[in-house]
């Protein structure tokens, strides 16, 4: 029964990810005084892409053709260990937050290899930039996550969320720092403005898009879907770790549906905030990204220090 719930939760995760992207785009369009496409447009795009025949470069190896599947699977596995509407599911117990970071790194590794595989200048350029950014983002992310796990004395996400729920609403400086660090990392890792521009057509400025420039058809659909999943994963992490209230602690129908509604509400608000910030700021110069991510790391470090100094001694 619990395993069935875990599978349903993961499927829900995968199914809702395009909707979140659609909602984000809808908010952005309205903030720019534009008419927005339907919320279902990302689904239509995925459907359209799956119907198209993928065009594969002559010199592509198996890495290029298999990477979309690997990346997508890694993201689905990552989604299965993050509590979406309920804690205490068996899948969450099987893996902890370090494994989650590992899934992200695994997916990125193959995406970067695929970018290099076909040998175009853009793919290599995109991979190089992606690895530069991730090498700076990963320590910042781990630092933020460690602050959390030190408080909860566990690296398991489900247990950590339960710990926060039991503690009640306490304003912890360490959590505030860690949350901001994680938000900054999330923006960088999901390729949003000001680090990367997901809507750009300027090949020389691209990071994530440059790596996947040669993909088409169902390959592209999988990669797009994986990116949408990644965005949702970070959204759920931020929402459920730092503001877990509303998440289902039992498996009654009422608790589960309440849990579903609250996570949809939380993600909706997060997307609005992201849309506002993306409307207000321009993309930064590539060489500013290191300062930005060092700042994220610094916030994570401050969170850890304030935990040790202010909270751990009590």
């Amino acid at each position, binding site marked *: 029964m619990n395993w069935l719930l875990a599978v349903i939760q993961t499927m829900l995760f995968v199914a809702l990810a395009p909707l979140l992207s659609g909602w984000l785009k809808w908010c952005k369009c309205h903030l720019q*005084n534009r008419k927005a496409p339907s919320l279902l447009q990302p689904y239509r795009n995925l459907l359209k892409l799956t119907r198209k025949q993928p065009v594969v470069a002559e010199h592509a190896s198996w890495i290029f053709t298999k990477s979309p599947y690997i990346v997508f699977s890694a993201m689905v596995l990552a989604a299965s260990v993050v509590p979406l509407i309920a804690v205490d599911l068996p899948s969450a117990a099987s893996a902890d937050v370090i494994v989650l970071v590992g899934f992200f790194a695994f997916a990125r590794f193959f995406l970067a290899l695929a970018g290099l595989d076909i040998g175009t200048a853009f793919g290599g350029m995109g991979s190089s930039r992606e690895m530069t950014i991730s090498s700076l983002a990963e320590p910042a992310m781990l630092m933020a996550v460690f602050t959390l796990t030190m408080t909860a004395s566990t690296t398991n996400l489900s247990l950590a969320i339960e710990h926060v729920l039991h503690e009640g609403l306490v304003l912890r400086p360490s959590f505030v720092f860690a949350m901001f660090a994680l938000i900054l990392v999330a923006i960088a890792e999901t390729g949003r403005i000001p680090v990367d521009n997901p809507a750009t057509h300027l090949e*020389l400025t691209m990071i994530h898009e440059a790596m996947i420039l040669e993909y088409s058809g169902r390959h592209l659909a999988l990669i797009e879907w994986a990116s949408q999943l990644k965005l949702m994963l970070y959204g759920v992490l931020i929402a459920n770790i730092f503001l877990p209230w509303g998440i289902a602690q039992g498996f009654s129908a009422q608790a589960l549906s309440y849990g579903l509604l609250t996570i949809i509400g939380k993600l909706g608000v997060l997307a609005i905030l992201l849309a506002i910030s993306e409307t207000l700021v321009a993309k930064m*110069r590539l060489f500013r990204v290191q300062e930005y991510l060092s700042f994220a790391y610094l916030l994570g470090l401050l969170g850890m220090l304030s935990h040790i100094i202010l909270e751990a001694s009590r």
Partner: protein
Amino acid sequence: MNDVNWMDALRQTLAAESIAIESISEVPAVNSGKAAIWRIIDTDWQKLAEQAQTHKLRWSAGWAEQDDDCFIVHALFENQGTYLWTQTLIPLAKPELPSQATVYPAANRSERHTQDMFGIKFSGHPDKRHWTRHKAWGKHDYPLRKDFAVAGQPEHITPPDMDYAFVKSHGAGTYEIPVGPVHAGIIEPGHFRFQAVGELILNLEERLAYTHKGIEKIAEGRTPESLARLAGRVSGDTTVSHAWAACMAMEQAAAVTIPPRAALLRGILAERERVANHLGDLGAICNDVGFSFAQMQFSRLREDWLRTQANIFGHRLLMDCVIPGGVKSDITDADCADIKQGIIQLRNELTDIITALDLNSSLEDRLYTAGLLSTDIAAAYGTLGYVGRASGQDFDVRRDAPYPPYHQVTVKVAFENQGDIASRFWIRYKEIMASMKLIAQFMALLEPGDIAAAWQVPTPGSSGLGIVDGWRGEIVSYVRFTAENSIARFYPRDPSQLNWPALEKLVLNNIVPDFPVCNKSLNGSYSGNDL
């Protein structure tokens, strides 16, 4: 009075250097400023450029044409608003001329274009490679020669232009990025070859001419009306100014003076074109640094502006509004009221948006100090329009060599000398404001009257030179007639031809991902350059 001084001084220097001026004449000042024509002996061609350089003349345009028994090569120079039009004759049998590109880097691509199209060899030219010529013509076929058919000799498949020798970089960590001619976005085709180390640009080379349409060749034999239509298609975003320049040249050749009302209407059209394009560019520059909010706002303003044009002039981009002898359609008092209303609205909205942009530090961070073009390089390459004016080149045909209707008003020319992307951004904003003022002034000066003069058939062999200030800068248009009112030679020099080389310089020491915004801040026309 200064104007006459440099010309006299140059003449004396030439005499001292024993460079003979075979003949001196003047361009008839029909609908345009004055220019002197000097004919030089071919062997002195380069020495002339050297002396022109010492007298601080700006190289403006260069082209050639085939006469019955010789080629005539032209070079146009300018200083303080006075033009010096130099010509030389070279025999058909041995088409060779000393290169001026050694003295004026601005002449580099122009001479390569002439070499590709006519087979005139420029000896001592610093760059031996082809320019406009890719692989479409046989080795000894020169498309602009008289013996080349207008239809050309098209092959089934044009072989790829693979052996163009780009500059190579060597050393650990340096690599090459080929970009284009097919781009990820919908823009004109052009190839850019970067040499980079990490993200730093070491060198950039442009390879253009992918949009070569044979404008010069298909102009041959056209009627004046038909040529005006063709000129309006040299570069679609500059349709008014190119048509105006071509008409000015034809009117000069035919000695047709346009009525004052036609001149004012042309002025209104040209300034409207400038505003529309600058609005688009302001938005595009913001979009290239990921700030799409601004682009959406500017696109909306541009769209409103274009719709007014469609209502009043019958075409969103004002195509074919300028005809030989005047303009195609008149405007009523009600139209004037609409235009005024549009200007008031645009001014108000623009002030709001610009204030918001000015306060945005993330945008400021991207635009300031990026894509720096120094005053010296801008001068050396003779950059024009907003690119030149943002880098200390204080020149504007409308003010310095005024033609009707600009002789009736005071043109305030926007000027900056920081030379970065922000400068080119703000210059555009200032020019929009100035243009709106000019449109209002022109409308106030409108008196009832004809909007076109009757066309007179020009005497066979007569020629004219039209020089106007398009939104990208000075446009030069050369026209010569044969008998029967038909065109023998048409050469339009778009300002992009002189601005494109500046891009290769201003991206140096910038990083690769900043190239798109550098490029957009210059916004050269591919079509206008490739002809």
